[in-house]
């Protein structure tokens, strides 16, 4: 744009190059300005302050009986909190060494001292459906944990993917026990 103007190309030879920088500088600055306008336009689509602030959830786990699960909400997504029975813990530990798509030990998926409390997102890692198995009487799949009906992913009692298309285990969100009975997620 700067060099193809008739006015500058026909100016005496020594004059041309020295003067071209001003057009390049002007265009370059305009480009920088235009690009920086994109920043707020893109950034506005990221989560807003109120959404980011609402990102912790507290759950009281004391009322959950062994073998039961509850559904809570974390960042507008379902959260499964399950209290494992002694049998289930033993079974999960026995499977720790078996061949899995996404190998993980039960101990890595629970907190020390609370290894009967399994906290996972209720979001299938395949395409985001909510797996069954958290509520009474639902299909728990071939491995007795969770089963996603959308595309047939089977998770075991520790929420690990054992069969079906899902690539990863059910995600264990960041959480901590704020007391013996209350967890704080996020």
């Amino acid at each position, binding site marked *: 744009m700067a060099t193809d103007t008739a006015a500058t190309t026909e*100016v005496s030879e020594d004059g041309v190059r020295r003067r071209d920088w001003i057009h390049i500088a*002007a265009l370059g600055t305009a480009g920088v300005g235009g690009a920086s306008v994109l920043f707020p336009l893109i950034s*506005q689509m990221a989560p807003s302050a*109120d959404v980011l602030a609402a990102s912790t959830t507290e759950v009281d786990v004391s009322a959950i009986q062994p073998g039961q699960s509850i559904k809570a909400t974390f960042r507008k997504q379902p959260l499964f909190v399950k209290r494992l029975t002694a049998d289930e813990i033993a079974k999960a530990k026995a499977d720790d060494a078996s061949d899995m798509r996404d190998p993980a030990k039960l101990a890595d998926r629970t907190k020390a001292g609370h290894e009967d409390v399994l906290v996972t997102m209720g979001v299938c890692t395949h395409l985001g459906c909510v797996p069954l198995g958290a509520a009474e009487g639902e299909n728990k799949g071939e491995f007795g944990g969770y089963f996603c009906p959308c595309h047939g992913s089977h998770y075991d009692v520790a929420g690990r993917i054992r069969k079906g298309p899902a690539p990863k285990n059910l995600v264990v969100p960041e959480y901590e026990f704020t007391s013996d009975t209350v967890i704080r997620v996020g």
Partner: protein
Amino acid sequence: MSFAWAKQYEPQSAFTKWIDEKLPLPRLVYNAVGAGYPVPRNLNYMWNFGVLAGFCLMLQIVTGVVLAMHYAANGLVAFATVEHIMRDVNYGWMLRYAHANGASFFFIVIYLHIFRGFFYSSYKAPREMIWLLGVVIFLLMMATAFMGYVLPWGQMSFWGAQVITGLFSAIPLVGEPLQIWLLGGFAPDNAALNRFFSLHFLLPFVIAGVVILHIWALHIPGSSNPTGVEVKQESDTVPFHPYYTAKDGFGLGVFLILFTAMVFFLPNALGHPDNYIEANPLSTPAHIVPEWYFWPFYAILRAFTGDLTIPFTGIVLVQAKLLGVIAMFGSILLWFVLPWLDKSPVRSGHYRPLFRKFFWFGLIPTMAVLFYCGGAPAEEPFVVLSQLATAYYFLHFLVILPIISQIEVPKPLPFSITEAVLGKDKAPEAPRAGSVDGGDLGAAPEGSLQPAE
């Protein structure tokens, strides 16, 4: 293009040649705003405002689409979603202030564009169609701006919607059902808010379509210029690019400095404090005014205070309210016939001594008075002042212009644009656009192109 000497687009690479065969979009751009569009060489800064208006439209569409991602057009939450944008959305305050002040700056630019047209008679043949489309754009802009002002659902939004739709109730017989139909209820509420939002989103794209027609129509006769003398030869013109792209780039920079100064330092100065109070159907603000860009027309609306009666009988022919509405719409609609009211063969106000006097000492002060009275409370002396100004406004366009175009003796016109720029003796050998002898580089001050005012 219409001029024989317009540069032709020549695709250089195999790829651009292929594109040019299949979809000659680069050629279109080249001919529309590139080197292929010859433009009079003597345009002054008043000719910057067309491009700036186009920029404002793009600015409003971009910021508006983004704001619509966070706004909800429901009476229960509309006000709160605007506050959500201002407080929680990343850079939401910047986007909203840019959109709100962008509307004001759009009108500043468009008013300068229109009044440039008045002074240089840009509406005259062969450019009537450009002018007519421009008036259509202006009417669409007014509708869009009004509906946009309703969306924040503050007190001024609500009562603005009430009062402006109330104008339609002045129409005999169908008026009141028409107002209820426009609002979808008996007062502004969700139905009105939702349809205003829908139309506020739609109309800018309609405007963009009419803008394309406006520019298309412009490219048939080519741009007008401050002398009003038509282009005769190649030396009268320069290619749009780089000459006017560079000048418009500079103009855009100045515009953006003023615009951002408002957005970042005085973002609420052009708005009204009452619009930060949530809409309340039970309480009207003490002093309701439209946005500043409607003040002249609001003054015309309010100037008609007396019913048209048959004297001494008490029979009312036309109510004052209807007279005001007719006059307000008429004050803009009469621009549609302007090309046929002003028949002077001379275009530019510079060569029309009588027209120029009425422009500077009649129309401009009148607009200033109307503007001031439109924003002032409906008390004396503002009512009498706005009545005098309204009378002059109509007389100026409908009576004075046709008469002076008949009786005026214009000043002698230059033979050509080149002659006007370079002086008579030099005109025949005037350097052609793009072929310049190096010795003159940077010699002429900018003022040499600016017609003295």
